[in-house]
């Protein structure tokens, strides 16, 4: 599927047309299109865009639709991509914008972004366990895929997209800020609050499913109180 490989060769259905479209673009003096073929780009990035889309829309058919629209726009506006910059981040920025324009209502009318207490897991699962027991680590080990994914999907969209980009997709604060078009400081605070909420939600799952005793709360007073209102 290398664009150069089809040069001069009979073009069969499939990759050839796209590759030729590229070549045509790249022949001009102001060739600003990415120097790779689009089919390879789709194959490389479709999984990560899809899983992010699925967490954001929560529905497989809508996620597919979102990803299709993302690639369509990327293809149409490929000349706007700046060579040498991060192509994957560029795709995520497009997908974020498509998501926001389609789900403006859901995105704008956020649930109130109330703060949860800081250091939730640590407060509730405490350090200082006897005999090397580590309930926190055990709880984390036992939580399953479904619990984690639901907890992510329950986050308000502004926190969800930030956590997905940094924790799941591995973008830096700066890249995440660029993709979401918000300041780095806002990335950090959303990430912090998003993680606190996730921790609270997963702790609740663990209690509900009997992984830990609800009176594990009692251990909180062995914990710490950076934010006040806790142990003395």
């Amino acid at each position, binding site marked *: 599927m290398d664009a150069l490989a089809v040069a001069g060769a009979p073009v069969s259905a*499939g990759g050839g*047309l*796209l590759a030729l479209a590229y070549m045509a673009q790249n022949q001009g003096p102001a060739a600003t299109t990415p120097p790779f073929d*689009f*089919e390879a780009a*789709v*194959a490389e990035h*479709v*999984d990560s*865009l*899809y*899983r992010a889309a*699925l*967490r954001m829309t929560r529905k*497989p058919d809508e996620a*597919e639709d979102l*990803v*299709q629209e993302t*690639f*369509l726009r990327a*293809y*149409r506006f490929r000349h706007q991509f700046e060579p040498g910059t991060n192509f994957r981040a560029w795709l995520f920025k497009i997908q974020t914008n498509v998501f926001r324009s389609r789900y403006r209502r859901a995105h704008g009318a956020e649930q109130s972004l109330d703060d949860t207490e800081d*250091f939730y*897991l*640590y407060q509730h*699962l405490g*350090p*200082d366990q006897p005999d090397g027991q580590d309930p*926190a*680590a055990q709880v*984390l080990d036992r*939580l*399953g*895929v479904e619990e*984690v*994914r639901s907890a*992510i999907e329950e986050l308000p969209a502004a926190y969800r997209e930030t*956590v*997905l980009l*940094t*924790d*799941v997709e*591995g973008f*830096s*604060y700066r890249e995440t800020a660029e993709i979401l078009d918000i300041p780095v400081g806002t990335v*950090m605070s959303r*990430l*912090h609050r998003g*993680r606190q909420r*996730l*921790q609270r939600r*997963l702790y609740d799952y663990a209690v509900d499913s009997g992984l830990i005793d609800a009176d594990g709360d009692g251990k909180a007073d062995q914990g*710490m*109180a*950076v934010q006040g209102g806790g*142990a*003395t």
Partner: protein
Amino acid sequence: MNFEDHPDCLIALNRMQPYVDRELTPGEMEEVRRHLDECPPCAKYFDLEESFKMLVRRNACPERAPAGLVQRILQNLREA
């Protein structure tokens, strides 16, 4: 222990998030690491935060796009 009484712990804890995200400068990373070496309660705390980040990553990550999506995308692009 109460971290409020330990300025070194507070400094480290304020850097916990950028530390687990590898967003500190190398010098700052090293300062935090040095504190964690000598402060087991903080080390435990940081471990928990790292484990949590890994949990989120591990469980959200291995997901694949449905079969056929790539073909549908490429079809769209050909018609574009």
